[in-house]
């Protein structure tokens, strides 16, 4: 909207109040509890599927399966929760009562984002801790049964697993920002959810664009593909699971670069969502 800077400064405190309310709403909704239970159940069930390890080592299978469950349910939760928590404000007209108060739309949008981000943070923390517990328990059993297989001590990098959880959280943050951007101009919840899933697929297939532009001879086309590569965040950069279990461990420089990559995209996409929402007539 056409708000100017007169009188009411931007307030981080108001932003946190909106975030807190969004978090409470999400936690009290059944969808969050359902997805959390499902994810926890699936992560926990990884140890029962160890016979189907397709040639991988058992610990790596548990790790991959657990992280896969986290990514799948985390993505679903991120898109569903962000769209639902935004549109419940519009459809129930609670946005009217909030925005009729002395509050900036920027505070409202980033408050919604932070609330959802906190919800996803809880989800990632719980599933990561559960996965670490399962891996540790199984690794202890295997070390007791086959000490020769562990000549250099533990195979799993538990610290890196936690870092991996944080990186997934940041990736979901980028996805939440994308969903919020779509919601800021969309008229329906369904459209937002469908478009966000499309975006999720595009962002996961981003590496194809990178491969493509390297092989395209035409300069304008190469530049176009390269530009599209910047427009859509590349979710493959968050895929560091191979280094966590039985791998060489995570490189601190790579982790910082990936985290910075996510934060830049969150800031830019969040800014676009604010711009779009400021022009929206409620």
């Amino acid at each position, binding site marked *: 909207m056409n708000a100017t800077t007169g009188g009411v400064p931007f307030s981080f405190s108001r932003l946190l109040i909106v975030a807190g309310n969004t978090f*409470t709403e999400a936690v009290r909704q059944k969808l969050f509890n359902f997805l959390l239970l499902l994810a926890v159940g699936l992560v926990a069930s990884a140890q029962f599927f160890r016979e189907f390890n397709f040639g991988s080592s058992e610990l790596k299978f548990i790790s991959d399966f657990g992280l896969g469950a986290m990514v799948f349910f985390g993505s679903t939760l991120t898109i569903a929760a962000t769209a639902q928590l935004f549109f419940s404000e519009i459809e129930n007209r609670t946005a009217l009562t*909030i925005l009729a108060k002395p*509050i900036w739309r920027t505070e409202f949008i980033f408050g919604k984002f932070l609330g959802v981000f906190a919800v996803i943070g809880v989800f990632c923390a719980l599933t990561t801790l559960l996965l670490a517990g399962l891996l540790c328990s199984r690794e202890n059993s295997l070390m007791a049964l086959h000490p020769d297989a562990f000549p250099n001590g533990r195979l799993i990098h538990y610290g890196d697993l936690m870092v991996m959880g944080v990186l997934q959280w940041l990736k979901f943050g980028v996805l939440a920002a994308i969903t919020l951007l779509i919601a800021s101009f969309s008229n329906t919840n369904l459209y937002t959810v469908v478009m966000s899933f499309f975006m999720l697929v595009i962002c996961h297939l981003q590496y194809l664009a990178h491969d493509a532009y390297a092989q395209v001879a035409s300069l304008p086309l190469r530049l176009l593909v390269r530009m599209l590569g910047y427009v859509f965040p590349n979710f493959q950069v968050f895929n560091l699971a191979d280094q966590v279990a039985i791998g060489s461990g995570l490189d601190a420089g790579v982790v910082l670069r990936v985290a910075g990559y996510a934060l830049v995209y969150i800031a830019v996409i969040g800014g676009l969502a604010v711009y779009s929402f400021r022009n929206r007539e409620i």
Partner: protein
Amino acid sequence: MTPAALPLAIEIKNLTKDFPLNLRGVKLRAVENLTLSVPEGRVFGLLGPNGSGKSTTIKIILGLLEPTVGECKVFGVPSGRVDSRLNVGYLPEAPYFYRYLSGTELVCFYARICGVPRKRLDERVREVIDWVGLSGAAQRRVGTYSKGMLQRIGLAQALVHDPRLIILDEPTAGVDPVGSAEISELILKLKAQGKTVLITSHLLAQIEDVCDRVAILDRGKLILEGDVNELVGQRDRQALIVDPLSPEQLDELRGWLAARGHALNAVEQPRARLDQLFISRVSRPDKGGQK
């Protein structure tokens, strides 16, 4: 002080609002060249049939919509600015609040958004909930509230930061006559406190009871504005209410009046208003909203 001399709470000048209907540039004109002033300390009724532009006007006052042409100021501040809403409380039509919060949590949330100081927060929330008569249901989840209770908790959130201007969009829509009468009482209490109230309602009897001044919109245009007493009062006539008279006494009275150049235009039995009869017979809700 006459209305013209009072400082203005709302000042609308030549306001037009168009909504684009499609990409070919077809527009719907919701409000057309509206000029309106609401003096401070008055209860102002904005009337009109559905689709007349009342809600659009209110949204522009609240900065939720931007005018296509013209300007709107609240206490002298352009309505698009965030600080124009510092002294405004708003109850939307058919309010729907966060169902999972209790009444206290809900009002507390809005109070914090409005910047009510933390040390005054609990006291102010309790005070305003008590004022709207919901103290008995304050700890219940809003999802369990009746329509009348939702209106009252809506009023509480609108008043929690002690605004000078309160905007009530159809505050009695879907509320039973008892609840409606209670809301009217609350509006009159606000007026007694010196607050400015802008109210829209389809219940014209209620508007007549509580408003000092009204404006009527039709298809986005202002068609009538003035003080209620001036608009509906018949200054050239008087009504006398007396004990029942026999036909002979009535004839005598007619003759007496005719001798003095007056006519007895109507003889009818005064009637109580049905809503007043209803309110006097049914029990009122207690503080918890239960009948």
